[in-house]
């Protein structure tokens, strides 16, 4: 057991005048406790008005992405003891509009994703009473792409997004490449073309913040470099 001080960014939309401020809470944490466990404990035992999103608490739903000690991560996946700190700072994801406390608006995330036509496009009808064939090797190309949980950590960590709120964002690039790389998708250009945009791929400056932030250890930068190659090849 150890007493941990949580410094949490508070913001109440009904009290705009007060704006954002940091509030401190003391929590007794034991080995095995995650940040989410501690936040729940604060909400349930100390201050019911503390607001954050959470659901599955097993790192698959993507609700509880937030900035923990300056890095984006899922609160449910970070072990308090692993941080080895007495004071832990928790803030809402950077770059998004804060709705309340640790809750941010996900509109830019959805908007970016919608731009890349995030669904499989086929022209020929699928075989009846059968699946399309795809070899294990072809399927392997999708590993590291389809696992995205849309938590928003990557885009929120990206300096290009901080600078340009209309930036499509690494999560959407990953999504786009998930379909470009899929042998079953018959219109890769339809996913590629929206990326060749003022707010698109070329604003990626290979900073790797998205890679460092991704709680699922995916590599949007790798997808981006593949997309860049594909787009440039398309121009010649």
């Amino acid at each position, binding site marked *: 057991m150890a007493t941990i001080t949580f410094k949490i960014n508070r913001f*109440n939309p009904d009290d705009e005048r007060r704006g954002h401020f940091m509030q401190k809470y003391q929590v007794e944490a034991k080995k095995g406790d995650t940040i989410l466990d501690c936040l729940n404990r604060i909400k349930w035992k100390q201050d019911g008005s503390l607001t954050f999103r959470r659901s599955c608490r097993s790192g698959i739903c*993507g609700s509880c992405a937030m900035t923990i000690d300056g890095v984006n991560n899922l609160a449910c996946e970070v072990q308090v003891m692993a941080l080895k700190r007495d004071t832990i700072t928790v803030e809402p994801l950077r770059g998004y509009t804060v709705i309340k406390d640790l809750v941010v608006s996900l509109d830019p995330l959805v908007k970016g994703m919608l731009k890349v036509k995030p669904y499989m496009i086929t022209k020929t009808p699928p075989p009846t009473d059968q699946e399309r064939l*795809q070899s*294990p090797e*072809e399927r392997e190309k999708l590993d590291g792409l389809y696992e995205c949980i849309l938590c928003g950590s990557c885009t929120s960590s990206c300096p290009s997004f901080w600078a340009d709120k209309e930036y499509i964002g690494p999560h959407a690039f990953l999504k786009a490449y998930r379909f470009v790389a899929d042998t079953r998708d018959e219109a890769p250009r339809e996913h590629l073309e929206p990326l060749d945009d003022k707010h698109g791929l070329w604003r990626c400056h290979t900073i790797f913040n998205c890679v460092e932030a991704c709680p699922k250890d995916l590599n949007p930068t790798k997808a981006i470099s593949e997309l860049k190659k594909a787009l440039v090849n398309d121009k010649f």
Partner: protein
Amino acid sequence: MSTIDPETIHDVEGVPVHSVHRHDVIIVGAGLAGMRAAVEASDEFDVAVLSKVFPTRSHSGGAQGGIAASLANEEEDHWEWHMFDTVKGSDYLGDQDAIEIMVKEAPVVVREFEHYGTPFSRTPEGRIAQRKFGGHTKDFGRGGPILRACYAADRTGHALLHNLYEVCIKKEVRFYPEFYALSLIIRDNVCRGLVAWDVINGGVHVFHAKAVMFGTGGYGKVFEITSNALANTGDGLSLVLRAGLPLEDMEFVQFHPTGLYLQGILVSEAARGEGGYIINDKGERFMERYAPDKMELAPRDLVSRSIQTEINEGRGIGGEAYVYCDLRHLGEDAIMKKLPQIHELAWKFLHVDCTKEPIPIQPTAHYSMGGIPTNKDAQVLADGKERPVEGFYAAGECACVSVHGGNRLGTNSLLEASLFGRRAGKSMVRFLRGTREFPELPADAAKLAIKEIERFLSADGGERVADIREDLQGKMTDECGIFRSAEKLEAMVKDLGELEKRFEKIKIDDRSNKFNSDLLEAIELGHMLEFSELIVAGALKREESRGAHSRTDFPKRDDEKWLKHTLAWKKGDEITFDYKPVIITRFQPKERTY
């Protein structure tokens, strides 16, 4: 589309006109069932999906192991075999006509997902790969475990859920993310829409529809150790109850054998499907005492009871309330390739490297077999038996068709959700083709919902919502958990009465309208207390052990008296019961051994 012309609509008292929305179909819940139905209905009609969380946060995404279908991609398989396994798994409480539909249509549904783009793992021939899963066998149980569960690594639910979201985007389904359903509008047996709370901005909204569908998920959150998400509070069930409709077989709650110790987070059955062992403090693979043939791959209820028995008899690891799930003999390569997520979960939540150490596990509340009684076309039944409510549908974990009976087989859940979601979609389309007009919207439609919100927002007693909830969860686990008895259940009835009294005196800290999760937790607790009564009362009535329902005072199955479904209503504080027979077509009840 969403906001309607004030001229054409009656005012709803207390709700501004711009907060009244009109869609042909309103679906509550953006999990597999809800979104699959949306995909089906959106070609012809205007569909809107409401969800208390962002669509891809739905708990369908937590499913790991697979979706069952007798594709026979890996070895010989027939839908009849699948049907037998499901019937047997249900401890003969499943309705066989519905099960037959499910297992027959399963290959169609799975292939459709493939056509939509789900990244299934593949066989060397390029077909959808399949793996073993508990309770799925060859040749009507005479053969060994069968490769039937279609999978995408161990992220099958995630892959299907995101794929459906993508298809919904393609079909331009309208989403209302973070809208929380407060009440149904059902008058004269016609469902006319529902009332919901806008979580982000606050405010009561009225949704006026020709058809409403519930895909609101299960109620595992009433238990302390559970694999369920924090959002799985079974809200849909008590909304149905409050609308004067019955719930079916609520006493059947599945406990999954392998939850991470204390966290309850699910370690997929795939771990055992791929060959993992379960061992006790003495290092024994104790399943050989309980299910000598199927060992670890026996159905969930049996394995859970076996583990709990080992723990109760002091053979948990170091006497504690857990045993080990050992994967080490599979080798690092196989673990990392076939079970990467299990490796990740064990590492992130327990700091255990399952290639080098065994994983501490304990049974965890996992799936609710019971729910809203529906027929094979996903229509909600007003009397629980035959008469449907016009324009009201339900599918997925919240519904009870019943295909799972007393115990669900692994990988049948994703199948049920998507297959009956699809059927709900089709049946709504049929209904809407014949219906031109929107049913009339009563002026006081939102009255109860507004009252509820006002009551909680001004609650200033002394009880914390979380304290009551924790007591409820703890007591439900102890007194209405894996092993039940009349004595424990009667104690639970009393406890529930006390908890409800405490619930009258709650306080909430957050009084604002915007993103008030304090308010939502209070409403959710109200729901949980309400349907928990039915779980306990149903369990007390059912004097037998069947499937997941295990009475220590009635350890045997009693087909004479209890081969029937429980239907329960709540009128005021009274719970009334009725029963309906199980539909048996192909397979007569037999003793269930593995």
